[in-house]
């Protein structure tokens, strides 16, 4: 009886050499599939001693007054218009805000995102609105138990429906990769002008209604199919150490 060309011992040895690499590839695929959850949590754990102090957190809370004033004005106008006509089944008072430290920040480049030091354990879920002093910064993209990843409004491809309260016109805020997102109006006849406040739509169900977002800087009336505008965000992500996440 002739012996096999690949004896069992050789096969076993090659398998023994190979399986740690297969296990490594499988583990890394799991990291990819979980969107780097283990790395985010490990990074949060390692960087915890270096997290920003509470001074800016208090400043953020006090600066909320400005935001509340703007919101109050918008809500008043909104209330006059909609009173008795619309039931959105949504009470912003019921919403809860969670303060979270910014533990990693990528505000330039292909991925414009923040990593926050609070996650699903604090009640944060994907899609929650994230606010800095004065206004909306972005939305939660993914969460781990201890961290959340926020996609900024400035990120390329980010799209959020917004509302110009003074002219009562809807638009789409599109991230361009720069610090000035583009506001694409849906109407051809645009009455907005530089200086107008852009907020989330009063009828928004994805984001908290009437949240200040940006101020119009310049309008391009010649754009097709509808005019567009460049806006300056109210809350700048470059210098924020603490944010608030509005949970649903």
């Amino acid at each position: 009886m002739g012996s096999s060309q690949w004896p069992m011992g050789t096969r076993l040895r090659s398998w023994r050499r190979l399986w740690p690499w297969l296990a490594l590839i499988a583990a890394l695929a799991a990291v990819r599939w979980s969107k780097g959850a283990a790395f985010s949590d490990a990074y949060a754990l390692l960087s915890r001693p270096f997290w920003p102090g509470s001074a800016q957190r208090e400043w953020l809370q006090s600066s909320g007054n400005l935001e509340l004033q703007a919101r109050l004005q918008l809500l008043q106008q909104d209330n006059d218009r909609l009173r008795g006509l619309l039931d959105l089944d949504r009470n912003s008072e019921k919403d809860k805000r969670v303060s979270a430290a910014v533990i990693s920040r990528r505000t330039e480049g292909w991925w414009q995102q923040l990593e926050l030091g609070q996650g699903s354990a604090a009640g944060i879920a994907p899609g929650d609105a994230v606010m800095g002093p004065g206004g909306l910064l972005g939305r939660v993209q993914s969460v781990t138990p201890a961290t959340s990843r926020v996609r900024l409004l400035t990120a390329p491809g980010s799209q959020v429906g917004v509302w110009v309260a003074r002219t009562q016109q809807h638009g789409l805020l599109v991230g361009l990769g720069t610090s000035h997102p583009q506001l694409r109006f849906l109407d051809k006849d645009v009455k907005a002008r530089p200086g107008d406040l852009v907020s989330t739509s009063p009828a928004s169900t994805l984001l908290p209604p009437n949240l200040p977002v940006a101020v119009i800087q310049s309008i391009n009336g010649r754009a097709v199919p509808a005019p567009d505008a460049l806006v300056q965000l109210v809350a700048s992500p470059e210098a924020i150490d603490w944010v608030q996440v509005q949970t649903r």
Partner: protein
Amino acid sequence: MARLHQQPICVASALLVPLLTLATPGWLTLSGVAPSWSILWLLPWSLVDGPVSGTIAAACLGLVLDGLGGSGLTQLPVLMLLGWWWGRLGRRGRPIERSLNLGLLAWIGTMLLGLSFWLQWRVLSGLDAPLFQHWAWRQCLLQALITALLAPMLASWQLLIWRRRAPA
């Protein structure tokens, strides 16, 4: 002495790449653009450990970094290509040590990475999107520049250490 991929401490050094990507030290950026840490780690690794190890290491790094990014763009194919190419360069001819060579290889690698992102971004956002999105080119050029400037310092230091641990 064992090859690089057989030395746990050398393999573990790859963990610095995702951690540095997350930390993004502000004092190591150029106009807010951080260097490509994956290129800075992969270049000396591939030069020392060869094309197969370079490709596998690039695949591992690419999987992790794609997980940390979130907009559907991938750097895996370009990193694997670079790992293979740099591995072959390291196996042929005289060892690459000069600062200019390391800087140039890092610059080419980062530009290829940036161009692949730009191409993917154009496909994702529709081919009718403007061809010269200035933010994309700015990001590409600045990242290539800061990576090429850091490569002679960091990569030559890594080469020195790793060549001592795994002589050819």
